[in-house]
């Protein structure tokens, strides 16, 4: 625990240093080249715009968070069982896997207008795009994880008289967690992209919608402020998954490196 805390404070320190340097560079460029604020506003201006518009940004952020989480959770709830089904039966794999790969070859973003046609404005198209875009990495990484069990381990378990269900729950599933978390982390970043795309195309709320309207008014400072809120949200989401990972698989190599 002590080590983890020390590591955490060290991480936080370097994060502040690197972000501070970036903001400094940004302010330096604005000051040096005297860029017009509709092209590149300085850090102070962006901060000011955030202060002036925060009342407006909070509900929009709420809508975005809601669509991201809905799409993501849906992808987990559908994707993980689907991966289990694909791994457990060769026939079902042959039936399910090719269409899954095929739908993957369609750029999901291109489907957003279709969803608007079908489902109109509102939550559904956003959630659908977020779901579709993060679904595939979650499924594929879960499948890879479930398949990566050592055949000798299955043999060992069978020689101990373990029924298939117990082999799955006690050996295959925990062994798949590291790979699953890989997919969950990639998916977390993609879900934000999906929800934003949905908001760009067919929505009258959410940060994506606010972003478009700020661009329409050439309010570049607000645009930047929204970008910051967005990246903060995406980062918080990603780290939440990472914390979950640390809690669930502290035994894995990737987590050991953290404490080393």
């Amino acid at each position: 625990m002590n080590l983890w805390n020390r590591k955490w404070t060290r991480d936080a320190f370097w994060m502040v240093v690197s972000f501070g340097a970036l903001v400094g560079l940004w302010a330096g460029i604005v000051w040096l080249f005297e860029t017009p604020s509709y092209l590149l506003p300085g850090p102070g201006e962006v901060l000011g715009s955030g202060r002036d518009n925060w009342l407006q940004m909070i509900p929009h952020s709420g809508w975005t968070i809601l669509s991201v989480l809905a799409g993501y959770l849906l992808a987990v709830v559908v994707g993980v069982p689907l991966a289990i089904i694909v791994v457990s039966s060769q026939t079902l794999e042959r039936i399910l896997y090719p269409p899954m790969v095929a739908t993957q070859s369609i750029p999901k973003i291109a489907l957003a207008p279709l969803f608007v046609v079908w489902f109109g404005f509102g939550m559904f198209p956003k959630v659908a795009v977020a779901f579709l875009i993060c679904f595939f990495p979650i499924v594929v990484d879960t499948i890879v994880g479930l398949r990566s069990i050592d055949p000798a381990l299955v043999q060992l378990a069978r020689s101990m008289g373990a029924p298939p269900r117990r082999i799955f729950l006690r050996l295959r599933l925990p062994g798949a967690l590291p790979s699953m978390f890989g997919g969950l982390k990639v998916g977390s970043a993609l879900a934000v992209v999906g929800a934003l795309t949905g908001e760009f195309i067919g929505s009258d709320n959410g940060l994506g919608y606010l972003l478009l309207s700020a661009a329409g008014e050439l309010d570049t400072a607000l645009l930047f402020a929204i970008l910051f809120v967005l990246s903060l949200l995406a980062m918080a989401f990603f780290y939440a998954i990472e914390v979950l990972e640390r809690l669930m698989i502290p035994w894995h190599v990737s987590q050991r490196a953290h404490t080393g």
Partner: protein
Amino acid sequence: MTPSARAAGSVAIPEARPEDAASFIEIESLDKTFVGQDGEPVVALQGLDLDVRRGEFVTIVGPSGCGKSTLLSLVAGLLETTGGEIRIGGTRIVEPYTDLGFVFQSDLLLDWRTVTGNVLLPCVMRGLDEKAHADRARELLASVGLEGFEDKRPFELSGGMRQRVALCRALLLDPPMLLMDEPFGALDALTREQMQVDLQTVWHRTQKTVLFVTHSISEAVFLSDRVIVMTPRPGAIRAILDVDLERPRDLNVHDTSRFTGIVHEIRLMFQEMGVIHR
């Protein structure tokens, strides 16, 4: 080799009981054919006959692909025989036979369980109470010199220690028989010799029937009462050699003429079969 010679060191040596002399594992004209990747049948084992006495240490030595590992899987009932039959303690094997301990080349320790947790795996797999066997697990670990490592994670252990944990796991429920598939194959040469000595000690103490598979002729001779020499695919028994070296053996037995004589004899057989060339 009589049981009395095995128990060297003890004062009173009981006479062999009749059941000791009887075969524990009986393998009769065993055939195993697989369907290969190209759909062609591959004969892994052909016409194999072998009887193993209770408490005997038998090693199977042969080239890669001679069906040694397949034989162990068949004995454990994890594969179906194509022909012939296997009986353990008189019972014909038709489904996984669980009253045995299996040790593989890979230690197969679970990263997410502690050392003790790994030794307790047979309980988990059978749905038995882990707590009831925790003391037994700790005793076993102590008996192989792993006192103080009970709560460590497998990744904190060396290869030799990990394989000791795997041995403890196999012994947890005190099965009468151990199947060992190249258990020391991944260890460095020095660790390997140490493990051979320690396994012999465990075997003396527990009197298990052991079916051991290896590539190493000297390992086979050092450990065994009998060495089964296999032919290349299709696997069949080329010869069965009695190893009449006194027990317990220490590593210096490697330098005795009787030891080198048996090793030489086996190597000649492999050269004759074209498995190894001079």
